């Protein structure tokens, strides 16, 4: 019940906003912020009450909804979704605070943001296919409006592209869901859309799994976005208002990776293993390609957007490592990317508000004028680069370590993305922050306001917290990951079988490998 309350609190807030006259902009902003912050603080209670020792769903609520079709309102949280949930509430609060400067249709904007929050939270807690799909589509609408109404000059194009792209993917998913629904009835004899039940009992052969995997894959791969389906992302990011970009990067992309963890792996284990080379191949391409393309960007937001493509490639790689390290890294990298990219978009938004340009060439020498901003930007840049001691490193390290245990070649190629990340981020940082001030307009810039600082401080704290002491975060994953691995059970696992094995076994296997590779 608490979970339901938390999830719908923003929506209730949005409805409450409807009753505030639209001239009272201050009241609207404060109410929206209060709702979002309250939601965030209350959601911390979930973390406090969360039992990390079990992979079971927690805080569940199961109420029959459309009984004739076996649909119920079934929600719950496990280790995979807990942190995503809390991060969503946090980023909502931050992005509402960050969008106090919005000029037109303040009321509608705040309502959209809060409604969006409910949609996103719903996706992470739904344990019913129907409910999941409802939320999945529901959150599209406010996001579409946020981009399309409050966006930049090409907002309509970007919004429509975003919407159609996502909708096309999710429609295929819907077809797959319906197929599963009837298939489950044929084989088990029950009409149900309960995800947990279906995951436990469904019985699919290889061909069926492959097709269904592809349908789900397309929906989630577009959302992630994986390599050939990524082109909506730069457009959407560039046109979206700052808060929109933050939410988009911070949460919406995570819904794709979350989908892989919740559906593709447990439902279609055989197909997952079968498709591993392709998915990993795309992920690796995404990592390198995103980084290379990011390097050439002239627009700051586009650069961060392409870096997202690269970072999400790491997440996908971790998921398809099928072992504890990789999955843990992927989940952590999810959170990390939400924090880091979210912060980078916020920062870009701040200078955009001041200068009304995002072109790297228009800046230069900002370090001297706005030192506090520079420090924040620097920290986030380094986190994005994956410097040890920041959050980015832990995730990337675990992902690559996991992949290395499973398929060495992908890991080796992907690791080179680390070099490229340094290239594009630092080069950008240099061109924006360092060198001499060439544009006189930059000399008059004002440093961060207290409000803007408020949006950044929590994110910076998380950067170092996760970087130096990630245990409070990773421990929530453990049980769920173990459970997930038993569900997948890769049959051709090379290095991943030994995730239960003791160190000695590992060493023995390693010896065997060594002998195979021995030159003598």
């Amino acid at each position, binding site marked *: 019940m608490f979970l339901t309350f938390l999830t719908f609190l923003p929506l209730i807030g949005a409805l409450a906003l409807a009753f505030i006259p639209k001239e009272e902009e201050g009241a609207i902003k404060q109410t929206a912020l209060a709702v979002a912050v309250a939601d965030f603080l209350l959601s911390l209670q979930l973390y406090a009450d969360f039992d990390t020792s079990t992979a079971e769903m927690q805080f569940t609520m199961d109420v029959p909804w459309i009984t004739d079709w076996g649909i119920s309102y079934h929600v719950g949280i496990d280790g995979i979704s807990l942190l995503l949930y809390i991060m969503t509430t946090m980023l909502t609060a931050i992005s509402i605070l960050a969008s106090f400067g919005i000029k037109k249709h303040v009321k509608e904007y705040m309502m959209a943001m809060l409604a969006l929050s409910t949609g996103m939270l719903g996706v992470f807690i739904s344990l019913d296919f129907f409910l999941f799909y409802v939320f999945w589509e529901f959150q599209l609408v406010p996001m579409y409006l946020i981009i399309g109404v409050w966006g930049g000059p090409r907002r309509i194009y970007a919004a429509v*592209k975003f919407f*159609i*792209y996502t909708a096309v993917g999710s429609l295929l998913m819907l077809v797959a869901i319906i197929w599963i629904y009837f298939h489950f009835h044929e084989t088990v004899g029950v009409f149900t859309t309960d995800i947990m039940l279906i995951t436990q009992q469904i019985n699919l052969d290889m061909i069926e799994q492959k097709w269904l995997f592809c349908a789900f894959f397309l929906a989630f791969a577009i959302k992630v976005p994986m390599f050939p389906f990524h*082109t*909506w992302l730069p457009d959407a990011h560039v046109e979206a208002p700052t808060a929109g970009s933050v939410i988009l990067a911070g949460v919406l992309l995570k819904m794709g990776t979350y989908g892989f963890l919740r559906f593709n792996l447990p439902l279609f284990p055989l197909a997952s293993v079968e498709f591993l080379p392709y998915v990993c191949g795309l992920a690796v391409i995404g990592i390198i*390609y995103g980084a*290379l*393309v990011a*390097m*050439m960007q002239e627009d700051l937001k586009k650069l961060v957007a392409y870096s997202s493509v690269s970072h999400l490639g790491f997440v996908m790689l971790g998921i398809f490592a099928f*072992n*504890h*390290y990789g999955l843990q*890294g992927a989940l952590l990298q999810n959170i990390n990317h939400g924090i880091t990219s979210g912060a980078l978009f916020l920062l870009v938004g701040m200078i955009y508000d001041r200068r009304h340009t995002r072109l790297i060439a228009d800046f230069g020498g900002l370090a*001297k004028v706005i030192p506090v901003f520079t*420090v924040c930007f620097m920290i986030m840049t*380094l986190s994005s680069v994956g*410097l*040890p*001691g920041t959050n980015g*490193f*832990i995730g990337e*390290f*675990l992902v690559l*370590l996991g992949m*290395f245990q499973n398929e060495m070649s992908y*890991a080796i190629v992907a*690791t*080179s993305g*680390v*070099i490229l990340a*340094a*290239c594009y981020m*630092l*080069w950008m940082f*240099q061109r924006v922050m*360092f*060198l*001499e001030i060439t544009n006189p307009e930059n000399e008059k810039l004002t440093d961060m306001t207290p409000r803007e600082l408020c949006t950044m401080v929590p994110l910076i704290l998380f950067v170092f917290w996760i970087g*130096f*002491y990630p*245990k409070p975060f*990773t421990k929530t994953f*453990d049980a769920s*990951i173990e459970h997930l691995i038993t569900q997948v059970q890769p049959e051709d696992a090379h290095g991943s079988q030994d*995730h239960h094995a*003791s*160190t000695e076994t*590992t*060493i023995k296997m*390693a*010896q*065997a*490998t*060594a*002998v195979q*590779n*021995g*030159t*003598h």
Partner: protein
Amino acid sequence: MSFVSLAFLVPLFPLIGSIINGFFGLKIGKDRVSWVACAGPVMSFAVTLILLFSTFFHPEGTPYPEQSLFTWIAAGDLVIDFGFQIDPLSLVMMMVVTGVGSIIHIYSIGYMYEEYSYYRYFAYLNLFLFSMLLLVMGNNLLVMFIGWEGVGVCSYFLIGYYFEKKSACDAGVKAFVVNRVGDFAFLLGIFGIFKMFGTIDFTEVMTAAPTTLIYDGEAATLITLALFIGATGKSAQIPLYTWLPDAMEGPTPVSALIHAATMVTAGVYMVVRCSALFNMAPLTMMIIALVGGGTALFAATIGCTQWDIKRVLAYSTVSQIGYMFLACGVGAYTAAIFHLVTHAFFKACLFLGSGSVIHGMHHEQDIRKMGGLKDHFPITYVTFLVSTIAIAGIFPFSGFFSKDEILYHALMDGNVIYWGMGISGAFITAFYMFRLVFLTFHGPSHVDPHVHPHESPKVMTLPLIILAFLALTGGILGIPLIHGWHVLHNWLEPVLAFDLETALHASEVMLAEHGHHTSFAEVLHEAQNKSHNIWLEITLMIFSVGVALAGIATAWFFYIKKPELPGKLTKGQWGFDLVENKYYVDEFYDETIVKPVVKGSDLLWRQADARGVDGVVNGVAWVIKLFSRAASSFQSGFVRNYALIMVMGFIFLMIVSQIEI
């Protein structure tokens, strides 16, 4: 209470200093910034001394203490502690880092005093010390890696300290990116180690290495090779050395601390730390020795042609680190560490001395515009000269002992080629270092008449004197000939001990289990038959001192006796041009790697992404739009057209239904 529990204080002090200066530096004023900044390293040094003395009383044969602060990363069976290791090897490095670090901090007070963002400099510098201490103290590869990357990023900031200069920024980015190439390999090495050993804790890995890896096996070779590539990035060896000369854009004390004494030697430290792995991979060892020797010689030749005082020293650093790797490559780890320590002393002194000159000359770095400065800079001159003699390897200065130990081992444990590279490098080193001294301090003055050179304040000269003293006397750490006297060797013995016989036997067994019957008896025999030959060592010493003196004499001949000769000889010589332009390596990298990547990325973005991938997407949309355009022409807005279409549809349905009937 064990003193080891104090270990965490060593990196903590600089970190606190960095945080205070970084956040409040502008408010508390320059004097307090200096106090805060210097207090950190000095206190760390004090704690390190306590740890050092407590280790003197460490009972023999027991494992050295480790301090684990907390579990850092835990995923499945991977558990990585955030822990420190206090053993002889890390203590040596900690002494160097905190000791030399403290001295350079004090020196910086004088050198940087006029800078506006003084606090920023010290915040970075303290942060660097913190990272460097993590690097040397970490008890597993990943803590080391934090430090490893941390020093890289601090180096990036400090090189780019004068961030309004484009060259400085470019140099910073270059340093970081090139370092990252090395880090990439280092990471792969860590992954490989984890795959093989299931842990990345130093003690566990090194204990397990002889019985887990196969001698000269592919796994051992690949892992060590990856680690070594990591080391070449950090320690500026061929092929990743190009960033170091550019890094001279940073303030001079930074060059002294980071790019001479500590950070660049991290690669050597890492190889020594992982010596057990490297001992299992003779192929890698050979590559290390060749790369090290090659770099020593190669960089030295470039050093002869440079005109920027700091660049000469930079190439000299590259060259000297090459010696250290040469020592590692032949298995003489003690010699490598010994040279690392003495090099930290004399090279830091040289850099600080050059900084003193640059400071007194109002940031003039070209030695062609110097000359005859010894009267203006009496203290700087003496200390500079002492260090130069030390680097040239003249008895009884510290460089003599360490370099000769390397050369001896290169011949005894390696072969004549290694020794040849080393000895010719030594000759060139003596030559170009004295060339530097002669051009800067002797001869006629070419100083710009508007510049009035002046000796530096005491806060700068005192560190010079201390370092010069250390450069002079550092050799007592490793007096050769009689083994009992070699303090460093005895000190490091427990860490570097390696039982080759057991390792080879284990490898034979492992191979035999899989049907490969190989005997390593020959290898073992060869290793055991190496004996210490005092007379050969003495002969080599005399010879190398002679070589060094010859180098000095050559320099004297060219730059004091006949100063017009070098210009005449080198004019129009394509060989000289080649060397003066650093063998065009930078240009080569630029053309073969940087430009293709940049151009390729541009192509990738503008063609593949915008036109290709997005083109397909937009193309689909375009086709749909085409159809809907056609369909929307029905939507004329005229009611009667709608009615007509409706009726046509009705008729169509009727006909269809009739056909079915």
